[in-house]
Every structure is written in structure tokens, then in C-alpha cells.
């Protein structure tokens, strides 16, 4: 019971103390609570921050790896395209080189060759010079011939004149008009008259027609053959003295005409010649030499020969001459091929 009393006596103090201590503590409790809260919040903050930092670190790592991965992909694409482009450029450049050479070669060889043109023009001018020379020569020759013909005509006229007026020739008794005694030399006409043969009365103009017959064949061969003349020898030739044969017999024998055998008389190709002659007659009668062709396109068999300068092993372009439309067989719906 003492304790109880002591406790009861102290209870108020305890109560007070209790209240006082609680209230004091209360004052500090808030402070401490706040401090604890602060510490805890700070600590939690640090924790969270550390966590977030970690998260950041991890996210950075992930992002880094992802970015590097996608960057590498892009880079590979770029490299791929760049290398493709470089290769294409290279191919293009090489193709251009080839095409350049080929085009130059083709134009020069098949379409237009400058040096060939120059050569051609040179050849043309040389031909022109040659033709000009030849024509000059020809003209000169013609002139010379004409002059010669003129001179000859003049000469013939003068000769004829002299022969007609031969009676003006001077005789021993009477000097002619061209041979005046007061002149030193006779006139040149006088000399011409001396040389001229007087015209015979009634000169008959016998024009001998050159007929190619077997009898006259003998007349135009060499001197070794018998001489044959159309004109008979003069009738009143005096009989030569001596043991000569009768002149008529001799002349008969000498001028005996050729009597060829039948085999010689006809040429060996008589039949062929006759056939030719017949064919020629028929040909002469024909208006049109071509055989009659029943269909109108039989004569259209001329193959077109293109110019040598524009055709080649590589041939002319078939588009524009053989076909005029572009054909894509792959696009055809039904099989028209």
C-alpha cells in the first residue's frame, strides 16, 4: 500500500510530469517528427534519385545501343547506295567510253567520213581537170581537122580551076597571061597550070558501089591474088611482036572469075546465119522486146540495191522501213505470234 500511496502521491506529479513530458516531447515530437520526416524524405529522395539515375543510365544504355544499331543500319544503307552509285557511275563512264568510240567509228565509217569526203572532192577535181584537158584536146583536134578539110577543099577547087583553064598555059610561041615576059618569075598559077592535067571531054562520074559479094572479095585481097578490074582493057591495043598467045585468050585466062566449089561458096555457118537473120527480122517487127507476162507483178522483180555508202554489215535500221510500230510481244494478250 505504500507504493500505492506513493504512486498516488506521485500520480499527480506523474500526471503532470507525464503531461509535461508529453507536451515537452510534443514540442520536440513535431520537431523530431519533422526532422525524421525530412531525413526520411531526403533519404527517400536520394533513393528515388538513385533509382531514377539508374533508370536513366539503363535507358541511356538501351538507347545508345539502339541508336548505334539503327545508325549502323542507315550507314550500311548509305554505303550500299553509295557503292551502287559508284559502280553505276563507273559502268556508265566505261559505257560512255565504249559508245563514244563506237559512235565515232560508225559515223566515220558508215555515215560520214570527213577524210573520204576530202578524198572524193580531190578526186572530183582531178577528174574535172582531166576532162577539161581531154575536151580541150578534142576541140583542138576538131579545129585542126576542120582547117585541114578547108585547106584540102581549097586545094581541090584550085586544082579543078587549073584543069579547066589549062588552055591558058603558055606555049613556046605565045607566053600565056600568067607568064608575062616582063616578070622575073612566072606566076605560081602558071606552074599550077603546067602541072594540071586537062579535063577530058564528058567525064562520066562512075561511082562504084562497094558490094560485099564473093566476086569482089578477090579484088580487095593482097597483091598476090589475081588482079581483077571492073574496067575492060582498051580494044585497039596493037598486037605485040613475037610468039605470044592470042591476047583475048590471055586476058580471058587472066581475068577469069572465081568459080568456087559449092562447099566454098556457102559459108560454113550458113544455117546459123540464116537463123540469126530470121530472128533479127522478127525482132525488128516486134514493138516490145519483153516477153508477155500474164500477171502485172511479174516484172516487179527488181531487187532494190541500196547505196553502198549507207548499207553495211550492221544493216539499215528496220524500224521505219520494215515495221512502223513498236511491238511488245510480252504485252500481247493472246498469242498472235
Amino acid at each position: 500500500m505504500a507504493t500505492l500511496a506513493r504512486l498516488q502521491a506521485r500520480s499527480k506529479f506523474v500526471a503532470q510530469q507525464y503531461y509535461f513530458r508529453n507536451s515537452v516531447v510534443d514540442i520536440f515530437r513535431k520537431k523530431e517528427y519533422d526532422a525524421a520526416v525530412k531525413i526520411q524524405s531526403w533519404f527517400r529522395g536520394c533513393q528515388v534519385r538513385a533509382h531514377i539515375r539508374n533508370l536513366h543510365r539503363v535507358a541511356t544504355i538501351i538507347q545508345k545501343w539502339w541508336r548505334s544499331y539503327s545508325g549502323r543500319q542507315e550507314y550500311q544503307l548509305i554505303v550500299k547506295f553509295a557503292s551502287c552509285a559508284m559502280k553505276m557511275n563507273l559502268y556508265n563512264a566505261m559505257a560512255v567510253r565504249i559508245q563514244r568510240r563506237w559512235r565515232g567509228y560508225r559515223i566515220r565509217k558508215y555515215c560520214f567520213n570527213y577524210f573520204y569526203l576530202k578524198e572524193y572532192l580531190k578526186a572530183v577535181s582531178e577528174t574535172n581537170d582531166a576532162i577539161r584537158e581531154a575536151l580541150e584536146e578534142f576541140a583542138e583536134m576538131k579545129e585542126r581537122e576542120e582547117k585541114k578539110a578547108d585547106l584540102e577543099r581549097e586545094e581541090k577547087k584550085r586544082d579543078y580551076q587549073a584543069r579547066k583553064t589549062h588552055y591558058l598555059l603558055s606555049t613556046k610561041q605565045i607566053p600565056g597571061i600568067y607568064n608575062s615576059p616582063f616578070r622575073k618569075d612566072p606566076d605560081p598559077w602558071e606552074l599550077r597550070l603546067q602541072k594540071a592535067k586537062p579535063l577530058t571531054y564528058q567525064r562520066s562520074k562512075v561511082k562504084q558501089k562497094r558490094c560485099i559479094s564473093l566476086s569482089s572479095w578477090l579484088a580487095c585481097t593482097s597483091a598476090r591474088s589475081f588482079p581483077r578490074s571492073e574496067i575492060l582493057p582498051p580494044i585497039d591495043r596493037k598486037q605485040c611482036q613475037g610468039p605470044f598467045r592470042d591476047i583475048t585468050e590471055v586476058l580471058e585466062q587472066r581475068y577469069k572469075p572465081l568459080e568456087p566449089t559449092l562447099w566454098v561458096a556457102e559459108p560454113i555457118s550458113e544455117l546459123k546465119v540464116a537463123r540469126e537473120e530470121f530472128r533479127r527480122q522478127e525482132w525488128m517487127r516486134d514493138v516490145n522486146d519483153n516477153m508477155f507476162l500474164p500477171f502485172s507483178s511479174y516484172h516487179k522483180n527488181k531487187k532494190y540495191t541500196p547505196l553502198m555508202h549507207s548499207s553495211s554489215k550492221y544493216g539499215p535500221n528496220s524500224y521505219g522501213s520494215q515495221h512502223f510500230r513498236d511491238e511488245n510481244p510480252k504485252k500481247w494478250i493472246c498469242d498472235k505470234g
Partner: protein
Amino acid sequence: MSQRQVLQVFEQYQKARTQFVQMVAELATRPQNIETLQNAGVMSLLRPLLLDVVPTIQQTAALALGRLANYNDDLAEAVVKGDILPQLVYSLAEQNRFYKKAAAFVLRAVGKHSPQLAQAIVDCGALDTLVICLEDFDPGVKEAAAWALGYIARHNAELSQAVVDAGAVPLLVLCIQEPEIALKRIAASALSDISKHSPELAQTVVDAGAIAHLAQMILNPDSKLKRQVLSVLSQIAKHSVDLAEMVVEAEIFPVVLTCLKDKDEYVKKNASTLIREIAKHTPELSQLIVNAGGVAAVIDCIGSCKGNIRLPGIMMLGYVAAHSENLAMAVIISKGVPQLSVCLSEEPEDHIKAAAAWALGQIGRHTPEHARAVAVTNTLPVLLSLYMSTESSEDLQVKSKKAIKSILQKCTYLPALEPFLYDAPPNILKHVVGQFSKVLPHDSKARRLFVTSGGLKKVQEIKAEPGSLLQEYINSINNCYPEEIVRYYSPGYSDTLLQRVDSYQPLTH
């Protein structure tokens, strides 16, 4: 009366008839008598004499009729109206060769005047008898018949077709091969008259095998024959490419070139006509002629003759140059351009000048090289003066304008262009300035020359509407020079300078 006295009357009558008809025939040779004869009614008197018993009177009457009809077409019509032709045709078939010659002469004389008279001859069936006469032995008869056929066929294509249908062409080709020169001439002239109208007729002549014989006859020394032969060949070749190729295949080149050196003017003319007709069809034929040296021969021929004889040669050069630039270059190196410019300046006739202008235009229009070759010979001022002159015919003006334009569009030879700045009309000036604007930006020496020769000054003086092509050209020329120089040469610059002098206040210190 006794028999002799009776017969004497007849003899007198016959003598009178003979004398009358011979006198008339002789009088008809002189033109001044013909009027009188016509008024005296000679036609009606001669007509019964054609039926006379005595052959000499018939022949002389026919001869007299022919001479009268030959003179003018009224008399020829009178012959036709007087129904003389059927009688002539009938007796043509029967009589001797003198009568045939005289009758064919009458037919020729009537048929030559007009197509209607020739048609009248065809209508009375004369063609068949004339063709029969072509088969006669006597060359004089053949000549007269061929002459008549030629004159009939000359007028138009229907008459030629009628002559061909009568079967004359093979016989004419035979006549060409005869030895007599006169017959050859007339037959060739008849073939030429037949083949000139249409390609079918020319083809008929070719089918009869005429070309080979004609090609051989080019070498004949007789000049009148050569004229006719060359005329036939050119009439055949002018129609189409095939015919021209056939003529060429007969190997006339280079023999034809010797004909260009002949003394006779008309042989030269016909030879150059033939070459022209061949050259005008395709470039290949022109090339063939160039390769054979034909261009040089034609140029020499042009140089050696005057007047209308030159015209086919000039046209031939134009045709050859028109085909392609290589051929034009071939004409240039054969020294064709100086010859053509000589023709242009010295010929008095306008149509020849027009042809020369056209040919020069064809040569110069291809590339700057060609234009330079033409411009160097100083032909452009001549062409300009022909274009501007009021005396030139319209054709000449048109052709010279076209030639100037086509040459100027390619000409880069500036010394020849400069005179044009001064005296050209506006439509040509535009082209000249255009050419300058093309050349000057690239050539520094030319720029210097342009300034020193006064061209820049002239260009500044040209008035052009802003926005027109001429203004653009002037601007591009001005852009080639520094601004001060352009201002220096602009008109009125000295005035502006003096104005500045007037308005300048010297600095007072």
C-alpha cells in the same frame, strides 16, 4: 479534022496545064506572091489538077499546094476545107515516089500550123498511109513521111498518141538506122516530138529500142543530127527516173561531154539540156554526172557561150547543188561559183539572171562553208542590187531575195556581210544583224574588226522596235562590248559630251 489536029488540041491543053502548074509552084516560093495567088483563087484551080491524068502535073500541083499551105494557116485551112486531103491520102497509097514526096509535103505543111488542122489530117486517115510511106524504099519518101508525122505529133499528146497507135515508132527507129543523114535527122526530130509529151509515149519510144541507136549517133560528126539526137534523149530522160536511168545506161557519159565542146551553139544547148534533165531527178544520177566530170564540162560550156544557150547549163548546176551538200561542194570546187556570178552580172535577160540567182542560192544554202564560197566572190551585193532594182522582173526579184536569204542564214564570213549593214532593206537587215550576233560573241578578232570598220556605229544607228527580233540581236551584239564603247558609238554621244562640258562647274579652291 485529021487525027493529028485533034491530038494537037489536047497537047496544047496539056502544055498549058503543065506550064500553069509549074509557074504557080515557082511563084509560091516567094512570099509576096502568095497573097495575090490566094486572091486569084488558086486553090480551087489546083484542086482538079491533082486528079490530072499526067503524073507530072499531079506532082507539081501537089508541090504548089504544099508551098502555099506552108506559108500561113489560112491557106492550110483552105486546103482542108476544100476536101483536098482525102484525095491526097488516097493517091498517096498508089502513086510513084515523087508524088508521095509532094503529097507528104502538103500534109506536113497543113499539119504544122495548129492542132485542129493536124487533127483534120488524122481524121481523114492520113496516118496509116504516112506510116506505109515510112516503109518505102526511097529515102526521100521516108524523109517526107517522117517529117509530116513529126509535125503532126508536135502539137499535143493526143495527136502523138494517134501517131504512135498508127505504128510509126518502130519504123522511125528503123529510119534512124538508115545511112542517109537527112533521113536520120528528120526521124530523130519526129521521135523527139513524139516523146516530149508524156512518160507513156517516151516509154513507147524506148521500148522500140531507140536509145541504143541514138546513143551511137551522138558520135556522128554532123551537127544538125547531133542536135536532134540530143533533143530526143533529153525529151525521153525528162519524164521520170527510170527513163533517165535507161538513157544513162546507154553509156552516153562521157561521150556527151564532147558535144559540149561542139562549134554549133544548139548542139551545146541540147547537150546541156540533156545533162540537166538527167541530173534533176535524183542525187544518185547527179553523183554519176559529177563523177564523170560533167560539172566541169558544163561550167566550161557556160563560159564559152552567151544568152539563152547558157540557160540549161546554169539550171543544171542549180539542180546538182540542190540535192545535197556534198554535191554542192563538188560544184564549188569545180569553180562553178565565179562562172555563175559572171553570168549573173553580165547577162542582159532577166530570166537567165533569175536562173543564175536561183543556182547560187542552191549552192550557198547548205553550210557556212558553202555560203562563204559564194560570198567570197562578191555576188551578194549584185544579188542585193537585183532585188532592190525596180527594173527587175518579179520573178527575178523573188529568186534573188530567196537566194540572199538562204545564203545569209548560213553566212559567217563577216567581210561580205558588212556592206549589207549599210544598204540593205529592213527584212534583210534583220538576217544580217542576226548573223553578226551569232558570230561576234565567239571571235575576238572579228569583234575588233567590227568596231574599227564602223559596223558597231552602224548597228547603233539602226532603229528597231523594242521586243522585236532585230532588237534582240542588237542587244546581243551590244553585250559583246564594254558599255563605254557602246555608249561611245551610240548616236548623239558627242552632243551629250558637249552638254556635260556646258554643265560642268570647275572646282574653285
